[in-house]
């Protein structure tokens, strides 16, 4: 059903720490692996060994350079992006078949591939580029928050988190319940000023991003003393001579 739930009991989602992500793409690979081997149509690659390879991914890392407006060095920010499991998910309400839905129990936004007709309208409705049509299967793919891991009693407890979170070697990704103000993710968001992406789109994302911490400013002109060395002796004579020429 494409009507959004009035409220969800839990709000499961991710916190992504932009201060820590090193842009290694390990989460991208882990996500592709898990979601190809498990639930639903595998994430296809098209022309993987050809001239113009492309493929379906549910998580992608962009890298940006930010020039601080107050001056100082530009900052490099690696920016992982996947479905934010929005509270007001526009991708769900536009779906004509009822394949897209948001779960009332935990807020996860999912696609029932058996009902999807591959019209692509939900991908148009998502501001974040979090949905990709699988070009081999012709159905819409998106992050499931690893719904087949987080409740999976066959896995050791430590593995019952999304594959990207489990894999991240830097600890930049955290999984938890945003409806609980005392959860790990809620506390991180409160402490570090976790933010929404494109709040003006009115999607009310559940996933939050922690902004990168400000960088140290270099001391004023650290190289001047070295460049100002006065030459003496023969070198000094040459120096003065050359200056006159």
């Amino acid at each position, binding site marked *: 059903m*494409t*009507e959004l739930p009035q409220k969800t009991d839990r709000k499961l989602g991710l916190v992504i720490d*932009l201060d820590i992500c090193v*842009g290694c793409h390990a989460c*991208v690979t882990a996500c592709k692996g898990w979601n190809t081997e498990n639930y639903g149509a595998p994430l296809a690659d098209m022309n993987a060994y050809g001239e*113009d390879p*492309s*493929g*379906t*991914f549910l998580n*992608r890392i*962009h*890298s*940006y*350079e*930010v*020039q*601080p*407006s*107050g001056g100082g060095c530009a900052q490099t*920010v690696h920016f992982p*992006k996947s479905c934010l499991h929005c509270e007001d998910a*526009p991708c*769900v*309400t*536009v*779906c*004509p*078949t009822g*394949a897209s839905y948001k779960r009332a129990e935990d807020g996860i936004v999912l696609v029932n591939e*058996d*009902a*999807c*007709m*591959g*019209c*692509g*309208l939900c*991908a*148009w409705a*998502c*501001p*974040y*580029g979090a949905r*990709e*049509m*699988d*070009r081999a*299967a*012709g159905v*819409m793919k998106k992050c499931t928050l690893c719904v087949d891991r987080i409740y999976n009693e066959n896995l050791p407890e430590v593995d019952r988190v999304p594959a990207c979170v489990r894999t991240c070697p830097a600890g930049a990704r955290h999984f938890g319940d945003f409806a609980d103000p005392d959860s790990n993710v809620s506390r991180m968001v409160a402490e570090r000023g976790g933010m929404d*992406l*494109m*709040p*003006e*789109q*009115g999607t009310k994302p559940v996933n939050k991003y922690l*902004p*990168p911490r*400000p960088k140290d400013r270099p001391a004023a002109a650290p190289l001047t003393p070295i460049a100002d060395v006065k030459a003496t002796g023969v070198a000094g004579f040459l120096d003065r001579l050359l200056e006159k020429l």
Partner: protein
Amino acid sequence: MHPAPSVIVFTVLSGLGFGFLAYLGAGLVVPPAGWAAFLVWGLGYGFAVVGLLASVFHLGNPKNAIRAFSQWRTSWLSREGIFSVLTLLILAPVALFEIFGGFPLATLGWPGALLALVTVFCTSMIYAQLKTVPRWNQWLTPVMFMTFALTGGAILSGFNVLSILLCVVLTAVLVAIFNVGDKRLADSGSTMETATGLGKIGKVRLYEGPHTGTNYLMDEMIYVVGRRHAQKLRVIAVAFAAILPALVMLIAPEGSLFGIALALIFHLTGAAAARWLFFAEAEHVVGLYYGAR
């Protein structure tokens, strides 16, 4: 947005078909019984159905298309599907009465005409509802779709004066939507800074994309190539969709089949150009993540 031929054919032809069906249903055009009525109604149904079929080619998994009638509560695409089928069903007895009986059936004809226009409105709302495509997300979008349907219908109906009037309106609507559309992305307030949330630090630029090749999102939503000749195409769209048909209708005698055919060919060419631009020029905010628009 990628201007897929199937979607251009779908919106242009179904708009024309349902526009014409509205005139027929309302009894504004009553062809003589027999073959003439059969051909005239066949034309309306033909355009509408061919348009709808073209939309199926856009689907990745058409075997589930039947489910598209289920989510009318929230989805404009679902509503469009339902209203298009309802229109075609309700107008069928009207068509049969005219073909075999030679008189219009206003009891079903008027509701059918109304439904035909509602169908076109639903089609337009599929696009107008999308906040992610600021150029579409405005009330001029449904106005543009409705004006196209009414103009095409008037031309097919052979109403010279009405066609000319609607062509004038269409010109104004197209000029307005081109100009207002150009400012919509900036007005939406979405920028690379809001997309990344990094605007508090400063100016953001893409330094490395997530992949070296392309992907579904870029192919589907970041269509920059086509914008190069946009200005020329805008002139062509207005000239063919509105100005030339108006001139033909001005010169041609009322009800001249040759005049109608010529005006229609011009109009459809212009409509296709306008619809191509409608997609090609539309910027999706996801482009901001790719440093494109």
